[in-house]
């Protein structure tokens, strides 16, 4: 069974038909959930970053702010991943061969690795060194913003 056969099989499944053939507003609804999840994810990361860099809430312990904001990051990630997976299931052959989609998935993988290896460590420390905080924030935000940019390009490429 080739990759294309698998993709076609997914595309012809009952779930895929439910999403793609019911009403075009189902797809629009998924897009809306995807955007709102992304906004929650990025904004929470920006908030933690500003605090890590000492640009906001300087007199507050970082760990406390990071803890509450990370919960929102997870909510955002759950919403985007769920809606994104459903969109992919509806038309996998459209996405799989799209260069912007492939780039987005690579960048997403990079962003998650950076998140776990750098950002999370910096945010969990009571007082990370300024240079470690700066590098973690710069690399992490650059990765996530690139995911968003590449994602936005899928429909145009």
């Amino acid at each position, binding site marked *: 069974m080739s990759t294309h056969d698998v993709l076609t099989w997914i595309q012809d499944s009952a779930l895929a038909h439910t999403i793609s053939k019911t009403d*075009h*507003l189902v*797809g*629009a609804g998924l*897009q*809306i959930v995807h*955007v*709102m999840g*992304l*906004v*929650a994810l*990025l*904004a*929470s990361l*920006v*908030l933690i970053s*500003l605090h890590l860099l000492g*640009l*906001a*809430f300087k007199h*507050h312990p970082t760990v*406390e*702010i990071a803890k*509450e*904001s990370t919960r*929102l990051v997870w909510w955002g990630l759950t919403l985007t991943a769920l809606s994104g997976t459903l969109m992919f299931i509806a038309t996998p052959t459209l996405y799989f061969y799209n260069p912007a989609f492939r780039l987005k998935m690579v960048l997403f993988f990079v962003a998650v690795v950076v998140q776990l290896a750098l950002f999370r460590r910096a945010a969990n420390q009571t007082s990370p060194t300024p240079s470690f905080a700066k590098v973690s924030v710069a690399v992490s935000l650059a990765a996530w*913003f690139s995911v*968003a*940019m*590449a994602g*936005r*390009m899928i*429909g*145009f*490429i």
Partner: protein
Amino acid sequence: MSTLMALAEQIEASSMGVAIAESRYAYPIIEGIHLVGLSISIGLIFLTDLRLMNVFLKRVPLQDMLRHLRPYVIGGFVAVFVSGGLLFWSAAARMLESPAFIAKMLFMVLACINALYFEFVIAQREPVKQSHSVVPSSVRYAGFASLSLWTLVVVCGRLIPYLPS
């Protein structure tokens, strides 16, 4: 309305409008900037709204939340308005006919009125100015109104290509 439409058609047909619409990369890149900019500006507003509603970062003083995030909210909005202006330039006539676009603009005006009312009336009250832990319930309502209105702005914006004009 017809003069407005004629003007929109002229804007769209200008060399700049045509250049954006026809360029292979310009349009999607501007869309990307619009998305990233709104994630920062509207996203940080959402977080501020949750603080006003007293469900997020309760221990951070209200004034810190408002003051420290303001430059980034404004910076994000600059990116959103510049990119949004360019997108409008390339499809002005189509936008004026789009019900989702009109609704988006309407909700944006309401969100701005709410923000101004909060800034110049509610936030001027002493308990808010001094970041008291107990603030008037109008603060909560303003946060909820902002959260709802900006959500509607994002929803209507995303619906522009889906709703037929």
